[in-house]
């Protein structure tokens, strides 16, 4: 599947296209099929997202959401692996293993 990601223009946070807007949770990302360019140019023009791009992903084996194909995007989705306290799941000791 193809999903869209970028950084929020104002605060730089990593965001994922959820079909209507941008979510900070990769679980919310939806398959955009062949609509990537159209959505990105519309969103770029609306000054909501910076440096948006499409990536390959697959349904998460856990059954929830999606897992980006490349480790770089998994680190973007999770946060720095060396600072679990700064990630989106600071209380989940196993969250980091999802990245690798």
């Amino acid at each position, binding site marked *: 599947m193809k999903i869209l990601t970028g950084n929020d223009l104002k605060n*730089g946070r990593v965001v994922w296209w959820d079909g209507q807007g941008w979510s900070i949770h990769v679980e919310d990302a939806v398959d955009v099929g062949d609509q990537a360019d159209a959505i990105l140019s519309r969103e770029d023009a609306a000054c909501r997202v910076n440096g948006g791009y499409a990536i390959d992903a697959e349904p998460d084996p856990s059954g929830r959401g999606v897992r980006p194909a490349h480790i770089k995007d998994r680190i973007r989705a999770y946060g720095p*692996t060396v600072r679990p306290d*700064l990630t989106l799941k600071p209380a989940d000791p196993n969250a980091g293993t999802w990245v690798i």
Partner: protein
Amino acid sequence: MYKYDQYDHAMVRARVEDFRDQVRRRLAGQMTDDQFKPLRLKNGLYLQLHAYMLRVAIPYGTLNSTQMRKLAHIARTYDRGYGHFTTRQNLQYHWIKLEDAPNILGELAEVEMHAIQTSGESIRNISADHYAGAAADEIMDPRPWAETIRQMTTFMPEFSYLPRKFKIAVIAAEADRAALRWHDFALRIVKNDAGEVGFQVFAGGGMGRTPFIAYEIRPFLPTGQILSYLQAVLRVWNRHARRDNIHKQRMKILVHELGEEEFRRQVEEEFQHFLSLGEDFPQAEYDRIAAYFTPPPFEAGLPEEIDRTDPDFAVWVDQQIAAHKAPGYAIVNISLKPIQGIGGDISADQMDVVADLAERYSFDELRVAHTQNLVLPHVRKADLYAVWQSLRDAGLADANLDLVTDIIACPGLDYCTLANARSIPVAQKIADRFADPERQRDLGELKIKISGCINACGHHHAGHIGILGVDRKGTENYQLLLGGSGDETTSQAKITGPGFDEDGIVDAVERAVERYREVREPGERFLDTYRRVGMEGFKEAIYG
């Protein structure tokens, strides 16, 4: 240290207001990202993996306590409570909001700081020996020259739109603590036979994809001619630079392609031209700048003895203290490399502690080392125990300077958009493997340097042991290099062979280190043994 005059203040403040307006226009949709990106980069603002990253310039690594407290305040108020010191003696914040950036730059301007020239095709932050002004072995304090060159070149159009970034370092001792010959342009302050002070000039060095060690382009340049000489170098580079090919734009490529002799010849020709214009800055201007670097009022008659009764303190003294030029004083190295920690990271609270110590014990001065550690340059030996106690209480008293756990690691794939692989976890695993302090001390000086990609911010080419992260079909892989150095015996590390995965590289490092231990001769450091034995002796141990 240097103090801004009214012009400096006015320039930096005007720049902040320019950027405030640029950010406003970008957020209002009046500017595209393509238009805005070069403007934010000129103010040190990058977009990294998780947020914007702001790189704050710390000219030649010198800070005072007010500035350090401001950095702590920014970390707390606008970031996530910490900062990261880089191999260019700068500080990076990794969680910045675009909407906050103008205010942060405004706060920095209040304490005579900025983020100019921390990005883009400009002369980057000029680095210097972090012991400058304190080292027992220096001819003079090199920072007045670093500051003079900074002032001459900042905002000068010819130096602002260079073919590519340009890195300068200045030192004034035989010992090289600034990786001098890994710079595009490097100056060592020397004295000639007549006792006159001048520069030994090196050019064409650099790390990255195509590493080169700078060669000596001129054995002696009178100091007053430095502007003419620098302009000559840049003119030759500008004339031939491959602006069409990003991999060939650095000056090191030109020097290599033209050849040393031809590059030198063209520079000398241009130099004579610039000299004839008589545009070098007046001596009075240098004197004005140098006056800010007058040595602090060191006390006379201080005791040399250090009470070593506390064994932990004695270990720290042996590892972290360097010789000072003034009797009764010492240079204190503060390790930012705790086992399990993140090299170069420092919390806002720790910044405040270090600022307090600088104010109380070091004439209000601090230094950032390119090794991602900090320095209190002027501490009375009699105060060392008190300083150590405060550092220990703040988690800053590791005694591992230049040892196997004092690892340089770039932010790597945990933060950096350009990365292929993570650097920090590898550094942590190696540090963990060698955590035993006795084992570290037995191994002696051993400099491990890790980069998460070919750009080499982690100086892997200059590591006694270097590690380079690469992307191998979507997974992290690590190449091992041996034999590099950034000191006065500069050498380029060589790749050992096939790469390793994350755990494999830690094992490989340990096998290399154990081979050193087996074959070393008395007094030999890892690097000495490597140079004597050569790659083959290590390869066999690493790959079996």
